[in-house]
């Protein structure tokens, strides 16, 4: 599988602060959902901003879909990446839902007729078409994030980066947004990078990258990472609910013979276990 994002040996620090990344390398595979997990201040968001060229790299190289991120390519790189940020309020540029979705298209000088078609389609995709005349003050946090996603879908990028996009939402809104992104990813064959400290969000991923203090600690499939409850906790992260349940079962002498299972598999195992008794 092709590596759509190649981060080669980068070093970076914010001015006046110690080195955040010291010769860091990471590859993101095309068409996969990659979750970057780690504590606050571990450098996850900085990494996302470096990939999008919002912060200037000091040494090393980042290649996005065969384009090196530099001054000449910056706008081409950004046209391949759609970013959803943390605060729903602060990324709502337009005065109404429709205008916000059109903002990115306006920047790319899309002709007006095309724009109307794309805006309608994108808003219908995220289920916000009926809200097109609303102003942001009359929308919930989850609805604003939907609009932000519609604004990105309108630009048909190859990569979507969710920079803690669900951290200010309630559990219901979070689940809605994650399902929506999963659906859009599947429909358009996108690459998704989600930056989060929510373990349950990372459970959606194909690949999980654990970042701690600017270093990549581990890069593996979720089931291989989530079983290591103690290690996750030592990094300031919590284990997913099912892993915690398995750990609690083990303490009571019930051993499922596995470190991690997702909800369905664990339910199936428990049912089997109970029926055997």
């Amino acid at each position: 599988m092709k590596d759509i994002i190649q981060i080669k040996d980068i070093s970076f620090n914010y001015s006046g602060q110690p080195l955040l990344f010291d010769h860091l390398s990471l590859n993101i595979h095309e068409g996969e959902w990659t979750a970057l997990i780690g504590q606050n201040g571990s450098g996850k968001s900085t990494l996302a901003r470096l990939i999008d060229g919002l912060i200037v790299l000091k040494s090393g190289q980042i290649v996005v879909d065969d384009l090196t991120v530099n001054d000449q390519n910056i706008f081409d790189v950004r046209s391949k990446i759609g970013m959803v940020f943390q605060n729903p309020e602060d990324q709502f540029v337009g005065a109404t839902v429709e205008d916000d979705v059109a903002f990115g298209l306006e920047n790319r000088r899309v002709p007006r007729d095309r724009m109307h078609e794309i805006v309608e389609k994108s808003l219908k995709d995220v289920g916000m078409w009926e809200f097109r005349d609303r102003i942001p003050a009359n929308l919930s946090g989850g609805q604003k994030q939907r609009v932000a996603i519609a604004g990105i879908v309108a630009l048909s990028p190859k990569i979507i980066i969710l920079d803690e996009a669900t951290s200010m939402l309630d559990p219901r809104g979070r689940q809605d947004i994650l399902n929506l992104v999963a659906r859009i990813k599947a429909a358009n064959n996108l690459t998704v990078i989600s930056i989060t400290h929510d373990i349950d969000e990372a459970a959606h991923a194909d690949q999980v990258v654990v970042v701690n203090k600017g270093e990549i600690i581990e890069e593996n499939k979720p089931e291989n990472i989530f079983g290591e409850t103690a290690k996750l906790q030592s990094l300031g992260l919590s284990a997913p609910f099912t892993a915690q349940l398995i750990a609690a079962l083990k303490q009571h002498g019930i051993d499922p013979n596995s470190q991690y299972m997702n909800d369905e598999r664990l339910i199936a195992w428990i049912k089997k276990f109970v029926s055997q008794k």
Partner: protein
Amino acid sequence: MSNFIFGRYLPGNSWIHQMSPQSKLLLSFYFVIVIFFANNIWAYGALSVLILFVVIFSGVSIGYFLKGIRPLIWLIIFTVLLQILFSSGGHVFWHFGPFSISDTSLINGGYIFIRFLLIIMISTVLTLTTTPLAIADGVQTVLKPLKKIRFPVDTLALMLSIALRFVPTLMDEMETILNAQRSRGVDFGSGSLKHRIQAAVPLLVPLFTGAINHAENLSTAMEARGFTDSEHRSKYRVYKWKGKDTISWIVFLLVGVVVLFVRKN
């Protein structure tokens, strides 16, 4: 906030709602200028009839106009009283020291009153029938000729629309900070003037830093969505000049001509 009518938009689909914002803006300017040319009963009569039709065509209930006048009522009464008590000339009915009431002063007072009323009415119609966003777009269209002298019209319009979009956000934030500081024991509503000004600091400083945070995040989000500069963009919303605009202009221009004819020189 319910009494605050300025800048409030009432959704609707009337003749005036459908007009393009740039022509509504220009017509309001034009109308205010014409008002200052009027100086007799016929001229004011013509303008009043015109505004009556405007109100009917806007489909907005008269209650909203009364609300628009309410905050200015003291200013109106004060000006009208000054006009009545201090103008000289004409047949004097009553006088006491420097004060006098004559038929001319009464008429002048009446004119001032109508003038206020007309200006408030036309601006209320403008803001009630036009969304803030449309007003921002209208300003952009109206100012377009200034591009020739390198005035950054597009940047101004973008600033205006972002400012308008953030008004409710910052209002909410102010409310939150107000309550948060109250819950910590800050008393905003009482005490001496000096005390009250000091009490505003714990409100203003967080509001200010909050605004800077918004600005920083918003600019990052705008950049990430391909924003380079405000000039080289296409436009999603366009307000075209329509038949209704032309007809309204013809009516307004005719009334303007009538006013110029009937005014006494």
